[in-house]
C-alpha cells in the first residue's frame, strides 16, 4: 500500500486534533491526582470544574465583554473558590470520613454543580471566541487552529509551574509530605487540613484552565462534566494514579487514540474507543503504563 501525501496530512491532522483534546484530559488528570494524593479520594466532580471554567469564561467575555486575560483571571479565581467551598462545606465537615462516604459526597457535589450549571446557563452549547485568530493555517497539508497552539503552550506552562510548585515552594513541599505520610507531616507541624483545602483549590484552578482553553473548539454545555471526568480519570490511571508527569503523556495518548478512532474507524464510536482503551489498561496494568508498579504505590505528584 502506498502512502500518499493526503494520507500523511490526514495523519498529521488527527495527531494535532488528538493533542488538542488530550491536553484537556491531561489537565483533568492532574486535577484528579492532586486531590487523590492529598485525600485518597477520587473526586467525581473534577469534570464540573472544567465545565464551570468554560461556561464562566463564556459569560465574562461574550456577555460582559471583558478582555480575555482579565476574564481568564477571574474565571480561574471563581472556579478555585468553588473548589475551596466544596472542600470547606462538604469534605472538611465530615467527622468520621470513610473513603466510600467521601467518594459519594463528590458524586453528590458533581450532580449538584451540574444542576446549578443547567439552571444558570441553560441546556444549549455556548460559543467562545478563539484567543487569537480562528483562521486555520496549513502545516504539511494539515489545517491547524491557532487555538491549538494556545492549548499546547498553556499545558506546557502549567506542567512547568506544577513541577516548580511541588519541588521548590514551601507549600508544595508540605503537600508532598502530607501525601507521603500524613501522620509524620502532622508531627512536624504541617496543617494537613489546610493542605487538603489547597489541593482542592489547585485542582479546581487547573480544571478551570482546561475548560477555558478548550471551549473555543468544542463549545461547552452543562452536561459535559461526566465524560470529561471519565476520560481525565482514564488519563490518570493510564499515567499511573498519583503520577502527574505520567498523566500528561497519558492524556495526550488518549486524545490521539480518540482522534484516530474518529478518523479511521467511526466518529460514532469515538468516545467508546478512548474509554475502551482506558478499561483495557485498568484491567491489564492498573499501575499505569508509565512508570513501574513499585513507583505507582508511592504517592508522588
Amino acid at each position, binding site marked *: 500500500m502506498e502512502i500518499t501525501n493526503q494520507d500523511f496530512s490526514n495523519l498529521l491532522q488527527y495527531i494535532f486534533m488528538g493533542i488538542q483534546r488530550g491536553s484537556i484530559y491531561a489537565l483533568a488528570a492532574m486535577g484528579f491526582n492532586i486531590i487523590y494524593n492529598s485525600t485518597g479520594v*477520587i473526586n*467525581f466532580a473534577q469534570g464540573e470544574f472544567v465545565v464551570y471554567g468554560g461556561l464562566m469564561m463564556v459569560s465574562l467575555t461574550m456577555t460582559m465583554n471583558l478582555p480575555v486575560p482579565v476574564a481568564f483571571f477571574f474565571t480561574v479565581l471563581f472556579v478555585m473558590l468553588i473548589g475551596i467551598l466544596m472542600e470547606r462545606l*462538604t469534605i472538611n465537615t465530615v467527622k468520621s470520613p470513610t*473513603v466510600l462516604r467521601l467518594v459519594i459526597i463528590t458524586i453528590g457535589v458533581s450532580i449538584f454543580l451540574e444542576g446549578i450549571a443547567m*439552571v444558570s446557563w441553560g441546556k444549549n452549547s455556548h460559543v467562545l471566541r478563539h484567543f487569537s485568530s480562528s483562521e486555520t493555517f496549513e502545516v504539511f497539508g494539515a489545517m491547524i487552529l491557532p487555538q491549538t497552539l494556545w492549548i499546547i503552550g498553556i499545558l506546557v506552562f502549567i506542567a512547568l509551574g506544577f513541577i516548580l510548585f511541588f519541588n521548590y515552594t514551601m507549600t508544595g513541599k508540605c503537600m508532598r509530605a502530607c501525601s507521603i505520610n500524613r501522620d509524620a507531616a502532622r508531627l512536624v507541624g504541617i496543617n494537613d487540613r489546610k493542605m487538603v483545602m489547597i489541593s482542592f483549590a489547585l485542582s479546581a484552578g487547573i480544571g478551570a484552565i482546561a475548560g477555558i482553553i478548550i471551549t473555543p473548539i468544542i463549545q461547552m454545555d452543562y452536561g459535559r462534566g461526566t465524560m470529561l471526568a*471519565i476520560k481525565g480519570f482514564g488519563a490518570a490511571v493510564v499515567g499511573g494514579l498519583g503520577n502527574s508527569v505520567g498523566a500528561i503523556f497519558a492524556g495526550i495518548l488518549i486524545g490521539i487514540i480518540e482522534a484516530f478512532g474518529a478518523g479511521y474507524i467511526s466518529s460514532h464510536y469515538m*468516545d*467508546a474507543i478512548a474509554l475502551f482503551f482506558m478499561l483495557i489498561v485498568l484491567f491489564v496494568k492498573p499501575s499505569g503504563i508509565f512508570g513501574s508498579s513499585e513507583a505507582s504505590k508511592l504517592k508522588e505528584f
Partner: protein
Amino acid sequence: MVIRDYIFLGIFLLVMACVPLLLKNDYYISIFVFASFNCLACIGLSLLLGYAGQISLGHAAFIGIGAYTSGYLTTQFAWSPWITMFIGVVISIIIAIAVGVPSLKLRGHYLAMATLGFGAILYIVAVAAVDITGGPAGLNNIPPLNLFGLILDSDKKFFFFSWSVVVIGLLFALNLINSRVGRGLRALHGSEDAANSIGINTSSYKIQIFIFSAVFSSIAGSLYAHYVTYIDPGPFGIMHSVLLMTMVAVGGMHKIWGAVIGSLLLSLLPEFLSFSTGYFKTFGIEYKPDYDTLVYGIILLSIMLFLPEGLYGGFSSAFRAVKNIVKRNGKKAKSSS
C-alpha cells in the same frame, strides 16, 4: 433480630398489595410499576454498596443489557420472554465477571470508574449499533409477558407481577444477608483484614456480590422492556446509574430496607415535584422538570453530610430515641407511684 426482617417483609407485602386499591388512576399505578424496576435494581445494588463497600456507577447498563436482550430476541426471533430474560441474565453475568474481576482486585474505587466507563461505552453502542438496537429510535413491538396464559398487558396486572418479583428479590436478599455469606460480607465491610484473617476470601466475595447485583438489574431491565413494549437508549445512560446509587445512599446503604425506601421515594419524587409546580409558583418559583437533577444532587448531598445512615438509619434512631423516652417516663411513673 433476624426474624424482624421477615416480619417487615410481610408488612411490606400487605402494604404494596393495597396500593392499587387506593390509586384510582392507571397513570399513578404505572409510576409504581416503574418504581418496582428501580427497587429491584437498588436491592441488588445495596448489597454491593452497603455490604461489600463498593460503588458501581454502571448498573443502568445492566438494566439495559436485560432490556435489549429481551427486546431484540423477542422481536427478531419471537423467542419466549422467559428464555430471553434468562439469556439477558447470562450475558450480564459474563460482563460483570469481565468488568468486576480486574477492578475488584484493586483497592480504592477503581470499580466506580470502571463501571462508569463501561456504562458510557454501552450507552454509545446502544445509540450507534443501529442494526441491532435500532439506534436512537430503539426497538418497537416488544411482546408483553405471558404468565401461564395470563397476558400482563394492563398496568394493574403488571403492578402485581413486578412487585411480586421485587418481594421475591427482597426475600432472597434478606436470606443472603442473614446467612454465612451475608455475615462474611458484613465482616468484610467492618474490617477487611480481620475478615481475611478468619478465612474469608474477600475478593471472591466482592466479585460474587457484584455479579449477584448485576443479575437483579438485568431482570429489572427485561421486565421493563416487556412492560413498556418499546425501548430506546435514554433510560440506560450514566445518569440513571448515578440515580440508582443515589437511591441506595439516600435510603440508607447499610440496610436492604434503605434501598427499598430510597428507590420508592426517589422514583415518586419527579411526580411529586411536577404535582407541586403550582405550589412553587405561589412562591414565585417557576419549577421545571429540568431541575430534577439539581434536586437529586441536593438530596444526596444533604443525606451524606447530615444523615450518613440514610433515611432508614434516621427513622430507626428516631424510633429508638422515642422508645427510650417512653421507657424512661414509664419507669419514672412507676417509681413515683
